């Protein structure tokens, strides 16, 4: 039973890792590619780490949860990386399929006073 669960988790993780990379490889522009790795990170590595934790906890040598730490690390850092990458791409004005919002749309509202609470 446990073995099935483990196998399932492992394969799922691997599949999503693969799909993430696939997205990176085949999606048309940078912004769309950027979406690939986020799932490689989240569900892919996530389930693999859960599998690992489960595996080692059931090996007798006490519960092993330190995989959670890796996951925590990834969940904290990956979005920031993605955000910065997008920011960089935006700064470099990379070609994008999605129409960028009109100048006024973004820049116009810059100078509005910041209301405090």
């Amino acid at each position: 039973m446990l073995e099935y669960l483990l196998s399932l988790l492992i394969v799922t993780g691997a599949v999503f890792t693969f799909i993430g990379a696939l997205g990176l490889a085949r999606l048309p522009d940078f912004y769309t590619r950027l979406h690939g790795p986020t799932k490689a990170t989240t569900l892919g590595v996530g389930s693999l780490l859960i599998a690992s934790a489960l595996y080692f906890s059931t090996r007798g040598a006490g519960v092993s949860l330190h995989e959670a730490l890796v996951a925590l690390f990834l969940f904290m850092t990956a979005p920031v990386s993605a955000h910065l990458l997008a920011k960089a791409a935006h700064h470099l004005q990379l070609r994008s399929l999605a129409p960028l919002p009109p100048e006024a749309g973004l820049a116009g509202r810059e100078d509005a006073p910041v209301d405090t609470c």
Partner: protein
Amino acid sequence: MSLPLVVLTPFLGAILAAWISRQGRLYAAWMAGAITLLALAGLLPLADAPFAGQTIIQRCSWIPAVGVDLAFRLDGLGLLFALLILGIGLLIMLYARYYLAEQDNMGRFYAGLLLFMGAMLGIALSENIIQLLIFWELTSLSSFLLISYWQHREDARNGARMALTVTGAGGLALLGGFLLLGHIAGSYDLSVILASGDRIRTHPLYLPMLALVLLGAFTKSAQFPFHFWLPNAMAAPTPVSAYLHSATMVKAGVFLLARLFPALSGTPEWSWLVGGAGLITLLLGAFVALFQHDLKGLLAYSTISHLGLITLLFGIGTPLAAVAGVFHIINHATFKASLFMAAGIIDHETGSRDMRRINGLWRYMPYTGALAIVASAAMAGVPLLNGFLSKEIFFAEVLGAAIPLRFGWPLPAAVTLAGAFAVAYSLRFIHDVFFNGEPVDLPKIPHEPPRWMKVPVEILAALCLLVGIAPALIVEPILAVAVAGVLQESLPEHNLAIWHGFSPALGMSVIALVGGGLIYLGRKPLFAFYERHVEWLRVETLYDRLLNGLFALAGALTRKLDTGSLQRLLFVTILSALVLGLAGFISVPAPLTGVRTRLPVDGVSLLAALGLIAAAIGAVFLHRQRLVAVVLMGAVGLVTALIFIRFSAPDLALTQLAVEVVTVVLLLLALYFLPQHSPAKPHPSPWVSHVLLAVAAGGGAAALAWAVLTRPYETIAGYFLTNSVPGGGGANVVNVILVDFRGYDTLGEISVLALAGLGIYAMLDRLYLPGPQRDAEGRAWDPDLHPALLATLARLLLPLALLMAIFLLLRGHNLPGGGFIAGLVTAAALIVQYLANGVAWTHARLPWNLHALIGLGLLAATLTGLASLTFGYPFLTSTFGHWHWPVIGEFELASAMVFDLGVYLVVVGATLLILIHLGLIHHASQPAAATPIPDPPVRDGGKRDALTPNLASTGRGEHGEAR
């Protein structure tokens, strides 16, 4: 006084003279005279030993291991030379005191003179030939100082350098010769060498040895073709010429011939080489002397000629020839020294040495004239003067030698011709100077010199007469002793008399005298002829060509080799390593592949390997886009870490990962200040050869790795695996090796890291390098200095990373981790702070002084090592123990952990020191850190520029070469 002291006295005197001349310029002269007298007084008491037929040898040990001792020898020959050196030296010093002008530096002159005198005495009185050689070279050095005495004159400088070069070269040859001579004879002591003549003459190395020794002698005694330096040395003050270049130094060469006569002479090689050189020099000197217009030039060439005569005598090699040789050494010293001094007086009084202007001086200085006439008559070989006597024997010996050497008449004819020319130039010296009409616009009206300036000349002229008239009385005793010293045996039957009846030699003398007169009478056409063919006789032009050629060659070779190009340097280095490695490998035949069983390749590894290779090659192809190259390098580093993991090296993987990221950060920091792209065509660089070399190097490395990997081996690893836990108290063997088994390596390693940090800190000190205000595409930088998300995350990340670092540090001894990795994790966490909040913000919050941190780390590691000394164990001996505390439970403490803590501190300190000061360059170079600009309109470069006009200007210059 002992011989060493006699030799030492002038050297000490030189120092005294130099020092005392500060008190008053004349003191130097008196001091020098006193010193000479002292040396003389020291020598004379020892003189009766040689007269009693004994040789004094005094030695003190110096380098016994190679048979080189300070050994001094006083026999007849040495005594004669020592007396010449000191006696004539004394006269010269008296003379020079009046000769030198007010502005001349007396101290320097007399110091040099005494230095030379000491060196010369050393030559005369050496028993050990290596020691003799040392003094030999010292005469060259001191004569360099004396010839260049008037340093402001170019001819003086060049003459001095020429003399030093030629005689120095001879000295080097002599070193070679003496080494061989000592090797053959089995000792460097003259007594042994002179006793083993037969062994020397029959030894296979005899000829090379003889050639080298003769090179030394001939250069010193100005024998053809090395004679040219002597006329050029005439730029020296006349007392120097009189002393060095007539009486003493140039005699060192012939002295050497006399000294080694019993050991080297008596072979055809000797006769041909020595006799040949002597004959040519004799003729050449006599001929050229006649045509010199410079008084000293004439004397110089005549000196060359007389030296040739003496050399020829030793070349003839009969005992009686040796007698004549020594005799002529004495005679030449007397008349030539006096002639030089006379020339000096004339120069001194008329202000010129050009015989075309100096005429009819008899009316102005008859007394000097009389002295000069006596001396030059002796030079010409006129009867009743000493020169005549030695020439008589010379002619006789030549006649005697002509038969065994199968010369027939040419040899006597040649020497007679030389004699005739000697008569001719002597005549010229008298007639052209003291008679021959009126002076031609001389600088000053000549008159007799001061009284004491003439005394030395008088003494020498008197000697010429006395010896010439009563040789048996005056010179016989010392000559006998000296010749005994030369031959190392009893004197041959000879008879110094003015009249031997009508002998062929007398006939030759008469012919020479008459012929000389005729030559002088018919000199006009001869001069014309000489003027036309002057060039081919001037060897110094050849010398100049040689020297210039040498300089040109040296320059060309050096420039060819040393282009100052780093690429060249690296190319040569790597190529050499390849050649050496290959040479070593193929020197013994063996298969490349070993017999060890290999691991099968699995898909993942293959893929990763291909990925790494692709990334590496990609980096090479894309290296002009520098950022891309950095990214690819990061990938290579990542895969390398995976390889370490794959092959059971977790610690390596961790280290590799940490190092690689910090390296990337460093590269980016640097890249900001460097062009973003390498120019497409940097310089015409031989990239084909570079590719070939790279491929060869790669092939070599791969082959080597393959050869080793496929071979079985035995290793010391077992010891570490078994002792790690019981001896080192750690399960992670790699870590235990690092902090314990080979902790000393690690101590050096962290010192390197600390030094890198400190060195970089020193390098960046006061380094001004403003960064570009826009990127390579000319785009202004993003105005958002510190993205909010990053800043927030950074706050969270730091505690986490520190926790992780402590974790890695504490467990490193037993599981993957350790001080170095922990340190880099800490550094990385702080780097994130810098990235998120900037250098100023972070630096202000950094609790420690980084230099102190590095220092404390090194200190911790060192003191941990030192602690063991107090228990009598060697440096770096570790200890550990397991403790059991209630609640906390079992835990281990090892001194190695403190060592590791030291490593941790150094790593953190050094890494941050580097990064911070790199970050600060820009800060320092930029007056006001860019203030945040409102979010500019997207997709509109023009407006962006409009927003940042003030930065636009500075941007261009920075990237002039990047675009």
